C-alpha cells in the first residue's frame, strides 16, 4: 500500500510538472519541474516524506534499468560517434577536471572566509 501511495504521488508530481511545462511553453522538461515540486512539497512539509520514501528509494536505487533503452540508442549513432569521438572525448576530459577544480576551490575559499 505504501508503494502504491508513493507511485501515486510521484506520477501526480510528474503530471503537475508536465502541466507547468506546458504553461511555460516547454522551457523546462516536465520531469525536472516535477522533481522540484516534489522536493518543495517535502521540504515545506506539504506532504509527509514517509509517503514517498519507500517508492522513491526503490526507483532511484534501480534507475539504470530505465535509461538502458535510451543508451542502447547508441547503435543507431555509431557512424556519428566514429566521426566525432575526438572532440567528445577531449572536451569531456578537460571540462570534467575544470568543473572539479572550480567547484572545490569556490567551496573551500568561501568556507574559509566564513570561519574568520
Amino acid at each position, binding site marked *: 500500500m505504501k508503494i502504491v501511495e508513493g507511485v501515486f504521488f510521484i506520477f501526480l508530481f510528474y503530471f503537475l510538472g508536465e502541466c507547468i511545462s506546458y504553461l511555460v511553453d516547454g522551457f523546462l522538461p516536465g520531469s525536472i519541474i516535477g522533481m522540484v515540486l516534489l522536493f518543495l512539497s517535502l521540504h515545506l512539509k506539504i506532504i509527509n516524506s514517509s509517503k514517498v520514501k519507500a517508492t522513491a528509494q526503490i526507483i532511484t536505487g534501480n534507475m539504470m534499468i530505465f535509461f538502458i533503452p535510451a543508451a542502447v540508442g547508441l547503435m543507431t549513432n555509431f557512424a556519428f560517434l566514429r566521426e566525432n569521438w575526438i572532440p567528445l572525448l577531449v572536451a569531456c*576530459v578537460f571540462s570534467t577536471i575544470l568543473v572539479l577544480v572550480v567547484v572545490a576551490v569556490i567551496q573551500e575559499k568561501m568556507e574559509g572566509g566564513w570561519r574568520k
Partner: protein
Amino acid sequence: MKSLFLLPEFMVVLILGSYLLGVWVFKKTRIPFLHPLVVSVALIIGFLSFFELEYDDFMRGGKFLSFLLGPSVVALGYLLYEHLLHVKGNILSISTAIFVGSVVSILSVVTIAKLIGADETLLISLAPKSVTIPIAINISEHTGGIPSLTVVSVVICGILGGIVGPYILRLIGIESKIAKGLAMGAASHAIGTARAIEMGAVEGAISGLAIGLMGICTAVIIPLLLQIIQ
C-alpha cells in the same frame, strides 16, 4: 525463432538480464571501465546486431522501461530532500559553487568541442554532460540533442572523475570535506558520489546533494543560454 525475439516481453527479459549481469560483473571485477551501464549496453547491442535486430524492434519492449525515466527523475526530488537535511549552514557557498560549476561545465565542454570542430548536434548533446543520466537524457531530448551521445559523455565524465577526482583534489590542496564531496558530485554525478562515499560520510552526503542541485541548475541554464545565442 526470430519472431519470438520481437516480443516486447523478450526485450524486457534481455534488458533486465543484461542489467543484472552488468551489476554482477562490476561487483566481481571492480574495474571502473566495466561500469554496469557499459557492460549491459554492450551486451544488448551485441545481441541485437548478432541477430540482425533493429533499435525499433528493441524499443517494442524497451519503451515500457524507458517510460519510467520521467518518474525516476521526479523521484530524485526525494533524494534531494533527504540530502538537504544533512546540510547545516554553507547554503550560500554551496549554491554559489554549484551555480558557477554548472555554467563552467556547459561553457567549457561546448567551447572545447567547438574549437576541435564538433558540429552543433554534438555540442547540444554534450552540454548536460556533468548531470546524472536520467536528467541529462531529459535535457538532451528537450533541447534537440542525441540522448545516447549524451549518455556516452556523461559516462566518460563520471568514470574519469571517479578515477582522477580524489588525486586532483589532493594535488590542489583541498581540505574541506564539503568542498571535496561537492566537487565529486558536481563533476561526476553518481559515479563521483560512489567514490565520495568511500572518502567519508560527509563527502558522500554532500556529493549526493551536488547531483540534484547540478541537475536543476543545468536544466535551467542550458535553455537560457540557447535563447541568448539564438
